[in-house]
């Protein structure tokens, strides 16, 4: 089965009101080209599940988000995400605010086909008070109460990886795959944009096969978009684009998202977008940060 698709074909398979998980972490390995394609579409009323960065900010700014399931939204080197803040401060989105580890448990519960996983995380905090849909339960084995973190079932997951083949074998060779494997397993359909489309022999090498975190049966579509994570990073290929992210951040105060959207996204192909940010060679030259 050849699972290659275009970004437009991926977005055509998404429907209003869907729950969509987005891989990566903050400004790292976000499927931004797929996000841009959503921004160009008339998709709406989405529930987004994300360790959020500009993916969440842009979707909020474009009015695509009905509800956000999150533990944080941050640009990292710029701590606060401007458009997420605007959305919250204008009361325009519903939220399910949870702990980072609870989000992982929710994805795992969905992946494993169970309704919840118990945890003590969230007890004693407003995570519980502000989320009446998260239930407390008793255990048959002790006298304590526990949080029943519900499964976060995704209609679709959108991920970005450095390598994939046309059958849907996906390799993440950077140092961290974040929770992408759990997004892939928690979702009904998983779409992956990749920097490099490799042939089948690539994964014969055990070192490469080790970078594969889920079976190809958990991948529905593969979109070949070199640089597709820009302006977020895709280690080991490229770091995040700090100047561009600063411009995006500044747009919240000058011109608003409309100005950013018109300049970079509206009516433009991904190739045109990349030309506007310096071209694919410039993207691939973005340095990996050290902390």
């Amino acid at each position, binding site marked *: *089965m050849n699972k290659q698709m275009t970004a437009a074909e991926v977005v055509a398979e998404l429907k209003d009101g869907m729950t969509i998980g987005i891989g990566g972490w903050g400004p790292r390995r976000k499927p931004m080209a797929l996000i841009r394609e959503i921004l160009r579409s008339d998709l709406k009323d989405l529930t987004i599940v994300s360790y959020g960065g500009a993916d969440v900010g842009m979707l909020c700014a474009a009015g695509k988000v009905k509800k956000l399931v999150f533990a944080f939204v941050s640009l990292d080197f710029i701590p606060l995400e401007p458009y997420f803040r605007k959305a919250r401060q204008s009361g325009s989105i519903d939220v399910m605010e949870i702990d980072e580890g609870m989000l992982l448990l929710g994805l795992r519960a969905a*992946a*494993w*086909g169970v309704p919840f996983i118990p945890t003590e995380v969230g007890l004693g905090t407003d995570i519980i008070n502000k989320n009446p849909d998260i239930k407390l339960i008793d255990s048959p084995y002790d006298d304590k109460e526990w949080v029943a973190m519900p499964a976060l079932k995704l209609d679709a997951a959108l991920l970005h990886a450095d390598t994939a083949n046309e*059958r849907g*074998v996906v390799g993440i060779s950077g140092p961290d795959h974040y929770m992408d494997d759990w997004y892939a*397993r928690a979702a009904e359909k998983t779409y992956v944009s990749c920097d490099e489309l490799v042939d*089948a022999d690539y*994964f*014969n*090498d*055990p070192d*490469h*096969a*080790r970078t*594969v*975190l*889920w*079976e*190809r*049966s*958990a991948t529905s579509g593969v979109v070949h978009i070199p640089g597709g994570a820009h302006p977020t990073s895709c280690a080991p290929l490229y770091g995040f684009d700090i100047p561009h992210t600063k411009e995006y951040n500044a747009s919240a105060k000058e011109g608003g998202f409309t100005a950013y959207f018109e300049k970079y996204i509206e009516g433009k192909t991904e190739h045109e977008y990349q030309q506007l940010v310096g071209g694919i060679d410039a993207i691939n030259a973005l340095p990996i940060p050290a902390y």
Partner: protein
Amino acid sequence: MTTPATEYSLAELMICAAAEAFRPDGEVLATGIGVIPRIAASLAMKTFNTDLMMTDSEAWILSEPNPLGKRPDDFVQRNESWMGFSRIFDNVWSGKRHAMLGPVQIDRYGQTNTSALGGTYEQPKTQMLGARGFPGNSISHQNSFLVPSHNSRVFVEGECDFVSSIGYNPERLPKGRSLDDVDIRLIVTDLCVMDFAGPDHQVRLVSLHPGITVEQVIDNTGFPVDISADVPTTPAPTEEQLAIIAEMDPQNQRSFQIKDNPAGNRA
């Protein structure tokens, strides 16, 4: 792939019949434990369901199935992804798997026993492997069974002595679930192919192997089987299938799977 073979062993017939179990699966992990199930899954993957996935029985998913047994020194295993035992369960619980296994007992409900025979549970007469992954397999994904010797010690009259896997038993149906949630596909034996498509999930005779009679099946099965007036004969392997089987099993391990390695056509 349409030239029926005239000479083939019973094991080869059973391999081809068992391969059919994987035909409608789409993209799932095919796990065939034992020589016949593994060659069956390999055959399916190399012919009519190329979307199947298989492992090397150790830690890797393969894009092409490995031949059985020792391989030449220059053999390159076609790895596709790491798949250690701990990750297998992520796959099992996703439901995207089809296992074909050989339990020691199978009852009318499709419940199986891999653990203990006779005596009491506290002190069984014969202890076997244990429940292994049967409980999880049976409630998570489709399963088929391979029985090399069809008799009423395997196909028991009552319930299994120990029930390792869930079947179509209304008495054991868990709250909030339906018998249709259980998904047992084929039972391939040395006599016939059966499934659970009879009335109320009764075991049904799908086809008889060449030269085998309905009576032989009835006499060797401890419970009633749904049998239509006109039972087809299990199709012979094609020459093309035999060639692939030989390629996947170059040391002819299949010839040791059925006592005396009989011919496929026993007419």
